[in-house]
């Protein structure tokens, strides 16, 4: 494959980021009724089961589609890995960490949706079973945050060492990335707490860390698209200015 074709695929992969962002917020968040507020862990089994009956269609379609949408994370992680390998050279361990972390984020997020689809599968069954399935889904997505943190910290560290005149991510974004990755940590408390800001519907275990994750994802997507665009421009019109931006500082 020539470089021009490769860059075309890289651009498509990078654009899967914004597409994921919009589709995920719509299907997982709004249609699946996790926004404006997810079901409280303090809800009784009967109330929770009634919530499923009330929003049955949205929950089924929202989470079923969000499982497919989640796979857009795959091409996005792949192009980020390729960009990190350019920085790291012969032994790209940080790119590998990022790749594995991103690859594991996909099952973490989508398998939790499977549990919620399973909970909605038989709305007529004993409510305690629906509650157990809902619990399992939330505990999977919230307590397995560290896979994604590895992805983010590895990406930030690699970009901090980018010697290009125009680095992959600006330095400030690298530090924001590390912060956003660590902001997931309170979500571990969801395994114990049922009320308050550290429960799975709380400000500090839901709204803040999920916002940080998607904020990082959005900002990183922008800079990844710009990076591919710079390389395409350097091939299309190899001017001294465009190649200078790609040259090592």
């Amino acid at each position, binding site marked *: 494959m020539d470089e021009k074709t490769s860059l075309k695929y890289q651009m498509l992969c990078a654009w899967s980021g914004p597409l994921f962002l919009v589709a995920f917020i719509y299907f997982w968040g709004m249609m699946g009724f996790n926004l404006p507020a997810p079901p409280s862990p303090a809800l009784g089994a009967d109330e929770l089961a009634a919530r499923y009956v009330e929003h049955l269609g949205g929950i089924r379609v929202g989470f079923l589609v969000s499982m497919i949408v989640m796979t857009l994370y795959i091409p996005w992680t792949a192009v980020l890995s390729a960009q990190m390998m350019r920085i790291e050279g012969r032994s790209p361990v940080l790119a590998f960490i990022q790749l594995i972390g991103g690859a594991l984020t996909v099952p973490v997020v989508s398998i939790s949706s499977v549990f919620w689809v399973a909970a909605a599968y038989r709305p007529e069954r004993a409510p305690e079973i629906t509650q157990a399935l809902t619990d399992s889904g939330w505990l999977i997505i919230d307590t397995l945050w560290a896979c994604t943190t590895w992805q983010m910290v590895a990406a930030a560290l690699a970009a901090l060492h980018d010697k290009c005149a125009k680095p992959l991510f600006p330095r*400030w974004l690298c530090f*924001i990335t590390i912060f956003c990755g660590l902001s997931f940590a309170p979500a571990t408390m969801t395994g*114990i707490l049922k009320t308050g800001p550290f429960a799975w519907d709380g400000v500090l275990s839901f709204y803040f860390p999920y916002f940080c994750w998607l904020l990082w994802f959005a900002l990183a997507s922008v800079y990844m698209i710009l990076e591919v665009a710079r390389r395409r421009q350097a091939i299309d019109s190899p001017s001294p200015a465009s190649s200078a931006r790609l040259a090592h500082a």
Partner: protein
Amino acid sequence: MPGQYPIGAARTGTLPDADALPLSAAARSSASPRRLPGDRDVWIFIYAELCAFGLFFVAYMVYRSDRVDLFNASQLGLDRSLGALNTILLLTSSWAVAAAPRAARLGRIVAVPRYLAFGIALGLAFMVVKYFEYRAKLHAGITISTDMFYMFYFCLTGIHLMHVIAGTIILIVIWLNARARLYHTGNTTGLEAGASYWHMVDLLWIFLFALLYLLR
């Protein structure tokens, strides 16, 4: 505390070597009499951390306003003297960690790792005190699930303890660098960046101590 050393002090242009700095973040901003100590992008990280803790504090105040009686009653179970001891430990460590870059700027290179080692020792002492404090709580049958106050107590002090551990690791890294004589009048950026993080850890504890242990 951040206000103690970073801005002002040695930055009023009285240092003769201010123009001899190499091309670094420090050098670019040293023209201004009130430059940002350390690294601008590390400060962005610190501001993000402060915002997150700001959110924690707001959450605490909101939940507290709902159940003031319960929060006040449960607060009596906290050991104020251990909390105060930890405050003194961190404040003293901040002084030591602030003295290190000053010594480096003045060319007293040998003193830099000594100040940092003192700061590290106090950070470790903080962890030991916290260990005994948590142990006493657990022995008394108080856990994170006891009530909303203790939920905040364990979560907020636990998250802060993670920052103390991270800050101590950062101090150890800059201590090793200082022992290798990496910091001197011409290069204090990394030293100041690490010290700034430590001051943030100290500042957050002062807020936590006031909110959890003292506020009635």
